[in-house]
């Protein structure tokens, strides 16, 4: 897959996260993978289709998910990764992917995005492509969020 397609997703994070009270996220690491990804604990899949078809996974530990949910809710403490916190993470994934879709549209590649699906578990694998996909680790105020991006 084309590496330049990573930028719309990374740019979405850089644009959207500070609007929700986070420090500007930094790109920590990028790699090309094939096969499956191991979930870090909380994984949200958002699919897209139209000019491009693919999936993006926002993959993070439960600790990171709680940190993000708390920051989104104006610093409200999040002890349990409960319904409200899960809803915040789904909403964030939706906002990030919608922003990435806007960025893709600006590159002439219009996409429609699906409803996010949030999965939780200590031990599961995710497969989003039969081919290679890109993994970008983003540093979000010391917490790592992994983005898996597959476009076909």
């Amino acid at each position: 897959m084309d590496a330049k397609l990573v930028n719309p997703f990374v740019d979405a994070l850089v644009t959207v996260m500070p609007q929700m009270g986070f420090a500007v996220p930094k790109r920590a690491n990028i790699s090309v993978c094939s096969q499956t990804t191991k979930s870090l604990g909380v994984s949200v899949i958002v699919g897209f289709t139209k000019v491009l078809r693919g999936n993006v996974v926002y993959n993070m530990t439960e600790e990171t998910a709680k940190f993000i949910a708390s920051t989104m809710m104006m610093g409200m403490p999040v002890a349990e990764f409960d319904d409200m916190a899960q809803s915040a993470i789904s909403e964030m994934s939706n906002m990030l992917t919608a922003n990435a879709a806007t960025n893709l549209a600006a590159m002439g590649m219009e996409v429609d995005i699906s409803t996010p699906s949030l999965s939780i578990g200590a031990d599961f694998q995710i497969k989003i492509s039969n081919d290679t996909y890109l993994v970008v680790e983003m540093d979000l105020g010391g917490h790592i969020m992994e983005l898996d991006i597959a476009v076909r």
Partner: protein
Amino acid sequence: MEKIRIMIVDDSRVSCAMLTDILNKTNFVVCGTARNAAEAVERYQELCPAAVTMDMNLPDADGIECSRRLRAIDPEAKIVMISAMRDASLIMKGREAGISSFLQKPVSENELLDTLLVLCHDRAGTISVLRESYVKTFVKVLRKSLFSLVGVHSKVELEVDADDYLEVDGVAVIIGLTGYPMGRAIVYMDQATMMKFSRVLLNQEEAELDETDASDAVEEAANIIVGRGVSKINDVFKDKEMRITPPGTICGVKIRIANSKLTSFRITASTQLGDICMNLGFAEGE
């Protein structure tokens, strides 16, 4: 009948008065108004309205920023933007902020009422529309496809899935639905069923099959089943182009897939290979 409570965010007294006038004649009631974003945040928490009408220009922030703040407090907040401009970039930005609908000033009475009605549509009505128009198609397609793919007869049951989570021990194939209605389909089954299903599908009943091959086979089958369902729906509703995203497949034990905030249905096909389930979740108010 209880009135549906609406909050107006607009810095113009005239606009507030006009909107209030339209709404109060109907089944809606204006439960409060806010003149700026800070006031909107405060009053929203206090009033918990069913929906909000949002002006684009506020003294302390724009309507998109204000909507973003409301959605941060309540990710389910239903917001209708009413603005003088209604271009694509505004709509894109607004959608990201969680605004459901966009109306242009001066707003037509019917347009406003229809938009709010759809947005605040009662749940029972939503469920019956989704079940009759969409979900029943998938019930038929699942039964027929299981017969054509793996030659099994199945007893299919359909119910509303009100559980907070889908519990998966085995495999789940998640396929996004775009267009209208927007949502997702998940085809899932336990580990033992996955192995039996894939052996039959790949015609390798004797051979050793590894889990990757098995989950790939389930993924392919799920893609076919959901694709057939969506084509059938598009044949009937010519104006609504539903599309599917590529599958995302998860495998493992004790996986919970969040199911709240969606109107969901569970279709269970009991077969000799085991139970093959499909969850259809639709986003509301989109």
